[in-house]
């Protein structure tokens, strides 16, 4: 048997040529006119993600990073089967990935980590072990930065808590019990908000060591049984926008020790509500604070259809509290996301295999479709 393996030491051109000569001398399939310099493979690096980059995460394709302007995939950050979101740190050039691994795939010894991937090489450069409590909920807000130096990780065992990691010193700081309240929605300073089952939000402050220094609750402004807010909150400069199953919009503003919850307005008119229009999906709405535009996936359905995909996209201005455009989707979509910059793009995911529509957010105009963003639409995380 003629063996024909190419073995060349990485980047060692000379070695390759030596072997290649050997190889070609063995190659019985034809005489060879080898004048050519053989090509050497290489490995790309990645630039810092731009404002129009996003990552898809879902069934397969988890961690694939795209540039929505060019439509090209830029690379893939490694995630675990249980990772549902990552945190991009442009200043440090890192992507932090919460990850759970078993020594035997689905069984054996469990290890929970925050993995530090450098943006340039999209490779793991450090990891910090954290308590084996990372929440297995498919949600964007299981990881977020808190202040300049800390990362919060949402735990559920099912007791709820938050693990704090110091990304400067790369160590686990401690765990904060947050019974009754979930997620990590960062606020200016070393502070984050949570949503609580009793109809309030909770704000927790960290001191400069990453330990809890203060905690307070808002007034109760929703009823978990009557009309709960979605667990997805939308970032604004000094707080978060919340939307209820029935489409009520609350603005939560945190100013010093004060937690202000605005009077709600509604995404749907009484007439639209009567027609059954409501918000729904896996990632059912998104918000750009620069343009103050909120985009929601809308469908017609009854109570408990808060996870049904949208047949239309409706765009709102949260200052005027009025709807701008609406458009119908070819296929229902459960996933919508908008970039965070002043000239935003809107991303609508659907399909099996999944693709992402890239649209001009101001007009809803379709720019292009990025195919094969994952097997199912999963979630889209704007960078």
């Amino acid at each position: 048997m003629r063996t024909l393996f190419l073995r060349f030491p990485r980047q060692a051109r000379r070695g390759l040529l030596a072997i290649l000569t050997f190889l070609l001398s063995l190659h019985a399939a034809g005489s060879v006119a080898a004048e050519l310099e053989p090509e050497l493979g290489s490995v790309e690096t990645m630039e810092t993600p731009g404002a129009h980059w996003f990552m898809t995460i879902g069934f397969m394709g988890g961690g694939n990073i795209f540039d929505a302007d060019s439509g090209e995939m830029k690379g893939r950050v490694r995630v675990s089967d249980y990772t549902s979101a990552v945190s991009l740190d442009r200043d440090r050039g890192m992507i932090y990935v919460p990850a759970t691994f078993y020594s035997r795939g689905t069984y054996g010894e469990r290890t929970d980590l925050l993995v530090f991937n450098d943006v340039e090489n999209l490779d793991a450069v450090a990891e910090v072990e954290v308590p084996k409590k990372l929440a297995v909920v498919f949600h964007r807000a299981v990881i977020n930065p808190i202040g300049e130096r800390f990362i919060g990780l949402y735990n559920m065992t099912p007791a709820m808590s938050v693990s704090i990691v110091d990304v400067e010193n790369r160590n686990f700081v401690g765990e904060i019990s947050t019974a009754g309240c979930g997620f990590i929605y960062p606020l200016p300073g070393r502070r984050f908000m949570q949503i609580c089952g009793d109809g309030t939000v909770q704000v927790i402050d960290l001191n400069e060591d990453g330990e809890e220094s203060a905690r307070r609750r808002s007034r109760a402004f929703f009823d978990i049984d009557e009309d709960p807010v979605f667990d997805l909150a939308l970032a604004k400069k000094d707080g978060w926008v919340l939307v209820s199953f029935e489409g009520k919009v609350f603005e939560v503003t945190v100013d010093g020790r004060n937690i202000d919850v605005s009077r709600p307005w509604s995404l749907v008119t009484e007439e639209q509500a009567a027609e059954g229009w409501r918000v729904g999906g896996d990632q059912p709405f998104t918000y750009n604070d620069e343009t103050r535009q909120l985009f929601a996936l809308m469908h017609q359905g009854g109570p408990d259809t808060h996870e049904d995909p949208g047949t239309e996209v409706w765009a709102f201005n949260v200052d005027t509290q009025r709807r701008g455009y609406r458009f119908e989707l070819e296929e229902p979509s459960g996933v919508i996301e908008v970039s965070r910059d002043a000239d935003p793009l809107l991303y609508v995911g659907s399909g099996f295999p999944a693709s992402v529509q890239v649209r001009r957010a101001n007009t809803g105009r379709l720019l292009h479709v990025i195919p094969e963003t994952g097997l199912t639409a999963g979630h889209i995380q704007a960078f």
Partner: protein
Amino acid sequence: MNMLNKLHAVLWSGLDGRITRGTRTLAKRVSRRGFVSRLGTLLVGTGALPLLPVVRDAAAATGIPEMGDPQSCDYWRYCAFGGNLCSCCGGTHTSCPPGTELSPVTWVGTCRNPADGKHYLISYNDCCGKEPCGRCYCHRTEGDKPIYYPSKSNNILWCFGTDSHAYHCTVALVLSETDSPG
């Protein structure tokens, strides 16, 4: 006809006429907010439909009157179900498949039994420790709440208190009769 229905129709058209019933459950998206599906349970919706026209015996240990097919997402106990039906995976609606572990911590739903018109509190226990079974995906959101209210949320992998939190499938146990839909 939505996308998944179309997909289903294309994939199985003509192969076996009996495989078309139950397609309406396809309209339910792949979920637990995509997590179960992410891990492989995306063999969407209608599930492994019975091959034989037998009425499965769903007689409960509790002795309550029963009707319906535990391999169908329409079965009454599944009103707040999210995941793969263990009855399609080598288990039953009350037992885990071999080699998996019954999670002792669950979420609950309140479902109406069509056989007696009464409401029952149902515990949805995940069977854990293997990759998703991938069959008979069923997602219903009656009374489902957001994740920050875990006991009523089916968007959480409920493999707590088990050796591994890998999700395989879910059973539906009757806990008690209850007066009203909770």
